């Protein structure tokens, strides 16, 4: 943690951008908006939880939450829906982070849900546990009686997410009704609900991929190593590079080769594409993100299933 009392002009300047006119630079304005939302959740809900995937967006969320409640602790636990198909680096990173922040971690296991017969594993070459997360997530939210689940989804990621509210109402089945969303105006967020209903709240809605990277860089926020270019055994499927992993059977024609790659998003190993990259540092990553011509979810095979794959999953309760 940084020195809590720092009177140097650098802090003032950092908050305001290059000169002290009463303007915030866009990253500080986004930060302030997100902190406002996080505090609003702590104030309006009785039992919030932060959905933590281990990816850069949820790492950003925990970092912003740390800022929002400083010098106090983050007043809600983290919830990880573990598919069992994670990048191993992500789990190590998660456990270190939880210990550093002193927050409680709840893990919902997709493997356990499969073993109990609550959900059925997909079969075939493109099998993914992505869809199974929905049932496990809803089950965990119900078990924990959480009334607000904070997520790191951003509107620039995907076109269905572009219509998402900061405070997104879910009915008692956890469903999203995109045509009947509450209007959101000014700084006023309506978190009222019936018993049994809950909210999904997305504090970083207005951040773009580049904003996230820029901010993580100026704040020196540590990230799992898979976000930087590294050597890895990969194979190509439907134009996407997948990391070799024990959960995804390869077709005979899918050859393994070693390449320098990195992740732009991090979901399951089974459906997260990796990208050819030489960016081994944050600055190089930012350079790459600001000049890239392909969206970050362009490498997610779960989004490629249909034109409205994300909307369909979101309606059922995906985040």
């Amino acid at each position, binding site marked *: 943690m*940084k020195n*809590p*009392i720092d*009177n140097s002009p650098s*802090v*003032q300047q*950092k*908050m305001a*951008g*290059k000169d002290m*006119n*009463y*303007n*915030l*630079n*866009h*990253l500080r*304005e986004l*930060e*302030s*908006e997100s*902190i406002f939302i996080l*505090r*609003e959740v702590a*104030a309006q809900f009785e039992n919030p939880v932060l959905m933590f995937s281990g990816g850069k967006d949820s790492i950003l969320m925990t970092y912003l939450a740390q*800022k929002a*409640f*400083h*010098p*106090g602790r983050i007043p809600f636990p983290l919830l990880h829906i573990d598919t069992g198909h994670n990048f191993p680096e992500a789990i190590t990173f998660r456990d270190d982070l939880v210990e550093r922040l002193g927050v409680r971690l709840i893990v919902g296991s997709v493997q356990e849900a499969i073993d109990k017969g609550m959900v059925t594993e997909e079969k075939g070459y493109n099998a993914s546990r992505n869809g199974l997360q929905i049932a496990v997530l809803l089950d965990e939210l119900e078990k924990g009686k959480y009334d607000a689940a904070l997520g790191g989804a951003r*509107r620039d990621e995907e076109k269905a997410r572009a*219509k998402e509210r900061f405070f997104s109402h879910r009915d008692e089945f956890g469903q999203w009704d*995109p*045509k009947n969303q*509450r*209007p*959101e*105006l*000014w*700084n*006023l967020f*309506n978190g*009222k609900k*019936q018993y049994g209903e809950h909210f999904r709240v997305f504090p970083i809605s*207005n951040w773009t991929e*580049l904003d996230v990277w*820029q901010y993580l*860089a*100026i704040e020196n926020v540590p990230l799992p190593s898979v976000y930087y270019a590294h050597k890895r055994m990969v194979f190509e499927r439907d134009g996407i590079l997948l990391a070799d992993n024990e959960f995804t059977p390869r077709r005979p024609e899918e050859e393994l080769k070693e390449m320098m790659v990195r992740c732009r998003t991090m979901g399951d190993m089974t459906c997260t594409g990796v990208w050819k990259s030489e960016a081994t540092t944050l*600055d190089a990553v*930012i350079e790459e993100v*600001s000049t*890239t*011509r*392909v*969206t970050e979810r*362009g490498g997610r095979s779960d989004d490629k299933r249909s*034109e*409205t794959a994300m*909307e369909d999953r979101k309606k059922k309760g995906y985040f």
Partner: protein
Amino acid sequence: MSISIENSELLRFTTAGSVDDGKSTLIGRMLYDSKSIFEDQYEKLKETTERRGEEGVNLALLTDGLRSEREQGITIDVAYRYFATPKRKFIIADTPGHIQYTRNMVTGASTANVALVLIDARNGVVEQTRRHAIIASLLQIPHLVVCVNKMDLVDYKEEAYEAIKEEFENFASKLDVVDVHFIPISALKGDNVVHRSDKTAWYDGPTLMYYLENVHIGSDHNLIDVRFPVQYVVRPNTDEHHDYRGYAGRIAGGVMRKGDEVMLLPSGFTTKIAKIDTFDGELEQAFPPMSVTVLLEDDLDLSRGDMIVRVNNQPEITQDLEIMISWFSDRPLQERGKYTIMHTTQEARCVVKEIRYKLNINSLHRDLEDKEIRMNDIARVVLRTTKPLFVDEYRKNRITGSVILIDEGTNNTVGAGMII
């Protein structure tokens, strides 16, 4: 690039329009010319356009995200779009323009710095143009930029542009808008959107993009009247911070400085700001829209919904509000009806004492007879709240001057009000 973006400002603008006025083409043009459309998005668009048996690349599909919108080919909801240039980062609130979506326009307008109004050069000022401008003025969007579009279809004639400009100015003189700017463009051909057109030599103003990158938004916040609604009380209760009691919130107005003498509302007690705290360290001063934590010199009772202000500059403390309300619900606004009201971080109940008139948002005409306020209507009403609120006129402060009404049965947000 990375350094310039770190120092760039955020500008939020709203657009409204219907299928044919070229709004989607304009947004597509801005995204495309500023290189904000990604290759895979573009390929997908091309594919979808072809599958639907249409020609070229339908840029409207980029903004229409929901299944029903894609099927019907219309924008129903507010969609948010993002792009950045080295100077600024932009958030577009893209809203439908039909009268039955007034509520979406109002929502998109509530946080905008700039309203972008499109006029078809062939048709001039039409009902929809007037409606957009009236909403922009009601919602007090500080800057209005009028794009006279489809100039290519009127042979880039100066007279066509000037006639529309004059027509709009005559109408706008009745509105409460301070800063209006006109630009002749062709979204389809790209004239004066990002690149200067060589076909409008008679026009010596900026391109749309130049305007958006440079319009002064520094004074869009109220920097005079200190307003700090308490959002959350930070009390770590740890050994290290045993006596720490911080009031967290987002500054809604004015510049707050360490050592300032302040008054707490509603108690009326006065004290001094001992410290303005953040995770990154203590600040000497803070201003809107910063989220900070304020510590006071004296241990006084203060909680969520209360407000920190300057001793000699207080908001109005009142239970009687006169507001312009935009109605969102399919159940009409009930005279003598009771609703939950949210204002800053305060919550109370209110009763609708009187409906004064309904505003015709195509003509500004005040209808004193028809007082049935239905979805998408805008009306002037009088409210009485169960407890005092600390309010300013919406004109003076968009944060402390705005309220929402919530239906107590459904919990839905049914109205948005601007305090007069």
